[in-house]
């Protein structure tokens, strides 16, 4: 949609009829303070929204015109109006707000007042005119709202000086509402509302129906209950049967495996038994060899080690003999000495019996000292006390060898024979082991050959274990089959019950009510859930789009003017729609007024641009004094940005004086109009003698 022209007649500073034509692209209107720039903006506000800033109609009429009529005391009526022509989808819409004033008896009287919209019907091509004088207020409002939706208008008709008031981005609702506008969320919301209402109605109706039906059909209820029970029974039996069949299948596989193994083993049981037997025998022989080795070690250390010692031992014994000879000669000599000096035992015993010493013939009564002296000499001549103690000790030591020399001699004599016997035994055991090893290797070779033929599984098979496993499997199979049979009987029973109850229900159904509403409830619930989730997703999606588009606009601004200005970027929280400012690296930054204003402008641009993208509706962007904070350096990038983002824009600027000619050269500007306030020469300007003049540059 574009704004083709605006006509102002005696509206505020616009004297008589003034027409301004606009083209696509950027239309720039510039003027100094008080020249009537804001009046032009106010004209839009009055026309479209009947805004007069609380002023009466007489007060928004051109004062110069009023003064002229009053001065001449004329009865001439003054026509005051503002009309605009929008072109939307190739159709012209003329919107006009009008009133006429007449000066009667020193008073200004409103004669006529009208608000109208006229256009050619896009479908019928009929000319349409709706006006308040015809009582078509609603239709006018409807048509205007179609052209300029209220929710977006604040972004279209935009007054920079009131930016903070008009568009409060610190209030998260602002952006949320923008999102609502851009999207079809309102439609969703309405759909949800309708759907919920419908849902409530249906559920209520359903509830009533159900109650009525329940009351009437206990039989139906019972049959349904039985049918449900049978259904559960069928389900549970089927599951159980399925599980059991699965288990049985596994058991069958295991049984097959056992059978396969046993059939393989059936060909070679002897070999395996033989192998086991040989292994057992080998173990036995090895045990014997081990025992033999232990025995050999004992024999070795206790006996055999002495082999070869006999000459030396014999030598030792020779020395013993020599010693004994020496000792014997000493004893013989001593015995001779004893016989001469000491009486023999025979005589002493006679003295003791007769109680008299036969040597000195004195009495020796028993127990007396003389008796004891005689007694002390008994056996004295039998002891070899006469030997030297050293010889005596040697004699005792030699005697302590006892029979060991003989024992050792015998041992030594048998050593060779024993060793030979041991050798024989070892040989015998070794031979047995070798034979068994040969037998084992031969069996192993046979097994190996059979394994090569039948597969390696043979090696680890044990027919006894496999047979026992097969028996256990077969027993389990039997149990499972019985269980399956049992459940199949139950299943048949439940199926019969189910069919019987279904029959009863089928017979009852014509009398009962089917509930198609139930489906409707389901669908409506689904729609509501869908709307809810879609709304949430779309809100997040759009808020991200606003942020993205804003920052894209900001980026294009900075790209061309990066040496002159530092641009901020917008960061919009997708959860609470709050706006914050960040630098190019995404770090939070406070920024200053003009920078923030530029971001906000870009947000507005983004909202309108997205609106175009989403709803295929394009709007003109009309702003008065876009940002008072902007200096020329900031204004130019802003204008460039606006020209890029909107099909049509009308920017009313404060007086840029000398810059106008420079701006005119810029190819992104379609038209420049200069507004001045004209007043008579030699007189100071007042409202009653001055008026706004528009000049194309």
């Amino acid at each position, binding site marked *: 949609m574009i704004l083709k022209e605006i006509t102002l007649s005696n509206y505020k500073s616009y004297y008589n009829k003034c027409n301004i034509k606009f083209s696509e692209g950027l239309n720039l209107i510039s003027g100094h303070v008080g020249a009537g720039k804001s009046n032009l903006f106010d004209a839009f506000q009055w026309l479209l929204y009947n805004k007069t800033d609380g002023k009466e109609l007489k007060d928004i009429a051109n004062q110069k015109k009023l003064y002229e009529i009053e001065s001449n005391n004329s009865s001439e009526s003054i026509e005051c109006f503002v009309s605009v022509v929008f072109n939307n989808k190739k159709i012209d819409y003329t919107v006009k707000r009008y009133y006429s004033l007449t000066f009667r008896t020193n008073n200004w009287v409103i004669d006529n007042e009208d608000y109208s919209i006229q256009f050619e019907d896009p479908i019928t091509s009929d000319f349409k005119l709706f006006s308040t004088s015809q009582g078509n207020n609603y239709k006018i409002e409807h048509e205007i709202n179609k052209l300029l939706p209220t929710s977006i208008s604040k972004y279209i008709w935009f007054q920079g000086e009131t930016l903070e008031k008009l568009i409060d981005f610190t209030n998260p609702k602002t952006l949320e509402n923008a999102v609502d506008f851009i999207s079809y969320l309102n439609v969703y919301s309405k759909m949800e509302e309708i759907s919920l209402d419908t849902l409530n109605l249906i559920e209520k109706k359903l509830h009533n129906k159900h109650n009525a039906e329940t009351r009437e059909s206990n039989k139906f209820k019972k049959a349904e209950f039985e049918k449900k029970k049978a259904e559960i029974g069928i389900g549970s039996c089927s599951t159980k049967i399925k599980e059991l069949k699965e288990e049985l299948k596994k058991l069958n596989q295991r049984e097959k495996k056992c059978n396969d193994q046993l059939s393989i083993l059936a060909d070679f049981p002897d070999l395996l038994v033989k192998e086991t037997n040989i292994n057992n025998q080998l173990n036995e022989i090895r045990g014997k060899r081990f025992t033999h*080795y232990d025995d*050999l*070690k004992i024999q*070795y*250390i*206790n*006996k*055999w*080690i*002495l*082999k*070869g*010692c006999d*000459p*030396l*031992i*014999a*030598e*030792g*014994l*020779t*020395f*013993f003999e*020599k*010693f004994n000879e020496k000792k014997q000669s000493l004893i013989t000599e001593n015995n001779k000495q004893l016989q001469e000096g000491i009486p023999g035992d025979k005589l002493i015993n006679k003295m003791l019996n007769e109680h008299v010493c036969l040597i000195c013939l004195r009495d020796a009564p028993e127990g007396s000292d003389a008796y004891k002296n005689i007694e002390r000499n008994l056996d004295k001549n039998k002891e070899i006390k006469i030997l030297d103690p*050293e010889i005596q*000790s*040697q004699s*005792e*030591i*030699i*005697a*302590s*060898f006892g029979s*060991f*020399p003989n*024992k*050792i001699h015998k*041992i030594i004599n048998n*050593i*060779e024979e024993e*060793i030979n016997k*041991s*050798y024989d035994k070892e040989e015998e055991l070794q031979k047995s082991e070798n034979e068994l090893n040969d037998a084992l290797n031969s069996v192993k070779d046979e097994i190996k050959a059979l394994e090569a033929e039948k597969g390696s599984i043979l090696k680890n098979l044990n027919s006894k274990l496999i047979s026992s496993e097969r028996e256990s499997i077969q027993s389990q199979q039997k149990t499972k089959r019985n269980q399956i049979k049992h459940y199949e009987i139950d299943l048949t029973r439940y199926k019969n019950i189910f069919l019987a109850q279904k029959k009863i229900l089928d017979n009852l159904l014509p009398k009962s009510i089917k509930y198609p509403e139930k489906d409707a409830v389901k669908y409506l619930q689904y729609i509501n859930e869908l709307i809810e989730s879609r709304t949430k997703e779309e809100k997040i999606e759009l808020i991200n789009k606003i942020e993205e588009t804003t920052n894209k606009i900001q980026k294009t601004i900075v790209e061309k003017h990066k040496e002159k200005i530092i641009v901020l970027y917008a960061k919009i929280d997708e959860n609470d729609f709050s706006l914050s400012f960040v630098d190019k690296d995404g770090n939070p930054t406070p920024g200053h007024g003009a920078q923030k204003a530029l971001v906000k402008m870009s947000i507005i641009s983004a909202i309108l641009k997205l609106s175009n993208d989403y709803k295929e509706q394009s709007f003109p962007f009309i702003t008065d004094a876009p940002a008072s904070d902007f200096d020329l350096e900031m204004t130019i990038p802003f204008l460039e940005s606006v020209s890029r983002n909107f099909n049509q824009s009308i920017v009313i600027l404060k007086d840029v004086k000398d810059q106008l000619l420079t701006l005119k050269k810029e190819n992104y500007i379609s038209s420049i109009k200069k507004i001045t306030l004209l007043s008579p020469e030699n007189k100071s300007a007042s409202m009653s003698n001055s008026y706004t003049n528009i000049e194309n540059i």
Partner: protein
Amino acid sequence: MDSIYKLMHSKSPRIEPLDYQNIVEKYAAKGGVKEKDATKFFENYWMPFAWAAILGFINDKSLPLDESNCLQPFKFQTIYNGSEEIFFALMLMVVGKEGYDILKDSSKMTKVIEEHAKGGFQLINTDLIEKGEDYYSDHNNFLVEILER
């Protein structure tokens, strides 16, 4: 009453460290070890000593001991407890070599046995050098040595 046991039981024969390490420890399991070591032919340290001493006597090879650092891992009582025959045979062989007068001096008897054991250890070492260090790892070779005497 004196006896050869009484005379000798408390005496400990000395063994030179190298012989102890290369032969005694190599062929005998450490006394008191419960687990049998199948790789060792002798079960006690005194056994290889007795083997060496007998070899020394038989071959009439006696060598003086280097007095320093000798080890005395057991007493003659241990030999007596292990095998009375070996104990008496050793004593008889000492008498056979030295005459019965040696029975007066237990230290001298001990020394004679030690020196013959050293002679025997040298013979074994020669065997190991000539026939290979693993020669006596095969128990049959102990029997071969006996049969070859």
